[in-house]
């Protein structure tokens, strides 16, 4: 066998190849819309908006005017103010509930996929039970028992999201746990904790985060549906879903009362999906592999 001498050029330039991919105007438009919505929701108290709960019974379903930019609703409340304050509720629930899901579901899924055995059977079994349970019935039962509040609503939606996150985390962990780099880490004397947190978590995080953004979008819609059914935040607090629900009563007279919050929700969910997809494609370091 021929033997080659090691020749090392010290001046080999290491140029990190950075792909300057065009993100596209759609991505930036989505980012712009999200920043706009978040900023409006966060700064709602500072904006020169009328109170979202002040009723003006003489000015019900007023059309768009200089005083009421988006008109008033069936009880004479300023539609724009309700939309902005409703964004607060929708975004809070939409972000907090998936956080509950990704934390608990992700942890359970990784532990189940890594340790296998009886623990995995228990986790997967209980998640199947949770999945089989009709979500609306659960939401109804919890709100009936504990009362309607923002916290309860967030918790319900969070718990309902756990099985999906658990499955994503477990599936990814299962495919990774028998890979050689995990055995290599064990051979280097890594503890289970270290392997889970340092070797597996960075790998599992990517699909989980992509799923998280999808989860935010779905939760906003689900929160809307629950509020539409009157299971969401209690009145007079507005959320996009409850606004659509209230607008339904005057669909023939003033269809904008249902459509404006629906459009806001549609644009937000679409933006989240667009941003999530683009970010996942950009940050995946494995794209160069294989």
């Amino acid at each position, binding site marked *: 066998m021929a033997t080659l001498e090691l020749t090392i*050029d010290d001046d080999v330039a*290491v140029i990190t*190849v950075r792909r300057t991919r065009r993100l596209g105007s759609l991505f930036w438009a989505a980012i712009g819309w999200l920043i706009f919505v978040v900023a409006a929701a966060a700064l709602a108290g500072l904006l020169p908006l009328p109170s979202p709960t002040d009723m003006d019974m003489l000015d019900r379903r007023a059309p768009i005017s200089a005083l009421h930019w988006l008109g008033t609703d069936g009880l004479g409340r300023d539609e724009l103010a309700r939309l902005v304050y409703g964004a607060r509720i929708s975004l809070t629930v939409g972000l907090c509930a998936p956080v509950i899901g990704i934390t608990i579901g992700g942890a359970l899924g990784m532990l189940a996929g890594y340790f296998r055995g009886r623990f995995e059977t228990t986790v997967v079994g209980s998640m199947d039970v949770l999945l089989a349970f009709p979500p609306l019935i659960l939401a109804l039962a919890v709100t009936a028992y504990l009362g309607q509040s923002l916290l309860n609503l967030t918790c319900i939606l969070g718990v309902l999201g756990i099985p999906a996150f658990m499955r994503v985390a477990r599936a990814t962990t299962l495919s990774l746990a028998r890979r050689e*780099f995990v055995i290599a880490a064990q*051979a*280097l*004397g890594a*503890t289970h904790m270290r392997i889970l947190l340092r070797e597996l978590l960075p790998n599992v995080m990517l699909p989980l985060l992509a799923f998280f953004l999808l989860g935010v979008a779905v939760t906003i819609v689900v929160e809307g549906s629950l509020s539409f059914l009157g299971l969401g935040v209690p009145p007079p607090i507005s959320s996009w879903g409850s606004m659509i629900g209230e607008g339904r009563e005057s669909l023939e007279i003033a269809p904008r009362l249902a459509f404006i919050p629906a459009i806001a929700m549609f644009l937000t969910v679409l933006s989240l999906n667009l941003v999530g997809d683009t970010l996942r494609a950009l940050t995946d370091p494995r794209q160069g592999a294989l």
Partner: protein
Amino acid sequence: MTEPALLSVEGVAVDLPTPRGNLRAVDRVDLQVGAGRTLGVVGESGCGKTMLSRAILQLLPKKAKLSGRVMFDGRDLASLDPESLRKLRGRSLAVVFQDPMTSLNPVLTIGTQLIETLQEHLELDSHAARQRSTELLAAVGIPAPEQRLTQYPHQLSGGMRQRVAIAIALSCEPKLLIADEPTTALDVTIQAQILDLLAREQRRRHMAMILITHDLGVVAGRTDEVAVMYAGRVVERAPTPALFKKMRMPYTEALLAAIPKLDAAPHTPLPAISGRPPDPTRSLKGCSFSPRCRYAAGSCYQEKPALAGSDAPDHQYACFHPIGAAAGIHA
């Protein structure tokens, strides 16, 4: 060897339960490796080489059953508690795997993987660990090590990745390095470089090494002793020069004949070993190589030959009709 061996594998057997019955992956293997020595383990795919290395590291699949003793530095690894075993791995025992694409974490930078290993075992602060990582990368022949630390595995070539894997394995100055087919996934020109690198680092660190490969050519110039494995058993064991001077086991001869030769005439058919290794879930009555062996006769189909030496004490083989013996049946 007069001094006690660093690693002594005594009667190690690995059983794997499969749906088709018990699979004996490693069958009563005895091996010794002295400090600073190199043992080559040769055999074709599925002969138990990798399972043997996993058995030494105590990293067998959960269902596998290990019997026998693995003595390392005077301690039986099988009886150690998980915590001391964990401390031993990495610090005293290290391993380099076949495919550097899968043995490095794809989403962590080279630097993270090296530095964390160093911090874990040597309790260095982050600056010292970084310094040492750069030195290690330079030692394994990686140009511009400082920049490499910030790169991901997929940004390196296969040879570079294997160098990084070797650097990680060497990071804590192990006493024994197990190289499990370290060059199989690499280009031929890179193979020689990686093997030279391993040999150089081994000499420098006075480290023992087990070189697992399916290529007799790889072990020829680079090992002190060779063990040839077939169907989970060691079928021939000898100091490297003695083995290549006078091999006794027909399987070893067949393996060597299967290596293409540069001086052969064009279009010379390459001799191959006909048939396939026996089904490891069914135990064969006779010698496991007998169905493929051209010397097989009589007793070969009836009983298993024991691993024993006849003329030289350190040259052992498991065969009734060793090459070079008179055409009679001994034993």
